[in-house]
């Protein structure tokens, strides 16, 4: 769709009031967007509270009741060295996990939906197992494995663990996209001299990108918020959730809220930036393809 088509869609969706005679259309046109905004508001509700309490001028240590407005936690956001370090670790781990798990998981998903081969059925079932395994078991058995290997716990083992338990989520999500993928585009690419590798990058990948992005987002969220498995395999490395859970014994400092707020605001800004960039490029997402 071009600059023109989305406008048309948006109009139909009722973001701009259409001309008068289209009453029925307008009516059903605003329900979905309003609903979407409501759900997102619901998702953001606790975030709003979090942001609010980042400004709480608390007197004690427990950030539970509103005491008044202050910016001092923003000034002192790096007050807790360990927290800062933990956050940095978590971001790093999430980034690496997302990239690696998304790649590995996407390959598996492609194999499972695009090819018939022996062991496909059992592989399909096997993929669900790590998701079904309780986190304590995942953490404890992986720790015991690392101990058997004599592998010191740290950043590396956390990464190994995170990649391990996010792969399945990626596979399942990407499969939802690649299922029933219309092969004729790939055939056309190959016909035009593209090797499977090039075909993948120039055709398959852009067309399944929405699925990959959804999977990557899930992987990132899973990794950045993981507590149990990380606790087992972190050794002397601290992560954001570990620190925050620990801190809850003596009161989670507002700096945690501030950091959450920063992550959130940067996230929203990035999201809006992509919109702006796409507007500038005048392009939009590829047209959906049937099967």
């Amino acid at each position: 769709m071009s600059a023109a088509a989305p406008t048309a869609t948006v109009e139909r969706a009722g973001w701009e009031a259409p001309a008068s005679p289209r009453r029925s259309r307008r009516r059903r046109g605003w329900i979905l967007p309003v609903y979407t905004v409501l759900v997102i508001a619901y998702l953001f509700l606790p975030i709003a509270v979090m942001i609010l309490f980042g400004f709480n001028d608390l007197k004690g240590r427990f950030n539970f009741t509103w005491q008044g407005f202050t910016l001092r936690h923003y000034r002192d956001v790096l007050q807790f060295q360990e927290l800062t370090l933990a956050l940095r670790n978590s971001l790093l781990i999430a980034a690496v996990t997302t990239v690696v798990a998304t790649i590995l998981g996407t390959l598996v998903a492609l194999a499972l939906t695009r090819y018939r081969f022996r062991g496909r059925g059992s592989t399909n079932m096997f993929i669900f197992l790590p998701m079904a395994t309780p986190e304590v078991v995942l953490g404890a058995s992986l720790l015991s494995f690392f101990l058997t290997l004599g592998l010191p716990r740290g950043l590396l083992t956390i990464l190994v663990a995170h990649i391990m338990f996010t792969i399945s989520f990626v596979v399942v999500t990407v499969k939802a996209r690649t299922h029933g993928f219309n092969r004729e585009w790939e055939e056309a690419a190959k016909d035009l001299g593209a090797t499977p590798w090039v075909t993948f990058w120039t055709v398959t990948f852009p067309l399944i990108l929405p699925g990959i992005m959804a999977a990557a987002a899930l992987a990132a969220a899973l990794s950045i918020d993981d507590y149990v498995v990380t606790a087992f395999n972190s050794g002397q490395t601290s992560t954001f959730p570990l620190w925050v859970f620990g801190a809850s014994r003596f009161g989670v400092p507002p700096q945690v809220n501030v950091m959450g707020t920063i992550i959130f605001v940067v996230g929203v800004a990035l999201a809006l930036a992509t919109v702006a960039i796409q507007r500038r490029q005048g392009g939009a997402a590829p047209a959906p393809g049937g099967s």
Partner: protein
Amino acid sequence: MGEIDVRLIEVTKRFGDVVAVDRVSLDIVRGTFFSLLGPSGCGKTTTLRMIGGFEDPDDGRIELGGRSVAGLPPYRRDVNTVFQSYALFPHLDVFENVAYGLRRKRVPKPVIRTRVFEVLDLVDLPGFQGRRVSQLSGGQQQRVALARALVNSPRVLLLDEPLGALDLKLRKQMQLELKRIQREVEITFIYVTHDQEEAMTMSDGLAVMRSGRVEQVGNPEDVYEHPATEFVAGFLGASNLLPGSIEEREGEFGVVALSTGEKVRVPARTLNGAGPRVKVGVRPEKIRILPGSNPPEQADNAVRGRLRVSTYVGVSNQYQVDTPDGGTVTVYEQNLGGPGRWAPAPGEEVLLAWHPEHTFVVEPESSGVEQEGGSDE
């Protein structure tokens, strides 16, 4: 004739129970324009897909340039395809769609630009390079698909109804362009079309397929004038087939007694091997329609009938004439018009006359063998 560029040897393809292509053998000479004709579902697309490398034959062997291509993936075959369903890349604009193959061949950027713009001009889509595929009309999409394949000047070009969505005028223009390119660049074209005129005017050779099998291969005039089977006769333009039995095989012209009782003369060579019961064919445009009162000319074959319908179709008038044995004969008459001309009225007795040279003979189809698309009149 030159070397064989594309050769199919007893190629078979099954989809489950469906035999889509059944022991097809074809030899296509380098640089020629070869058409595949046949009713819907007869296996044309499947044949092209096997040549392109998208399906593996279940049986038989395909050679390109004299070498078997079994297992050779599509991207290693110097073959490009215009897909029946276009298969344009939805995430790329028109320019990038067309440039796709050139980019893969690492053609320098400026050359790509020039060639893409050239070919877009050629398919009459100048200025469309920035459009998304979803912003094109059906015919425009088809032309992009054509451009995307053409721009690569491959050795073999497979075209699956490449002009089907175009209006007559544009189609004619594209036909000329295709023919010119094919001659100039010496590309081997394998061309699926439903437009018989297209097939007739453009092809050096053609094959008529039916239910996965090749019924007849030859050059266009041959196949048209001397269809080998009732099916081919019926498929290539309307044909009148009159049942009868052979009375006389000798001489330049044999004689067939029609079931109406009338006798017609047929070129003796077409009788070779035909059983006693045959069908006698004559193309509608070969028949002259004359007032029933006219005496038949000596040299002509002639049949009497009663006009049922006459239809005006621009270029010509069409007449449906009932014969005494319950059959129908179709006649096309050029619409020369003019106020003074005799025009038969429905219900009127008419005389249908044609030159024996234009008569051909085919074996009648044993019932039941017929598949979709093949119900003759």
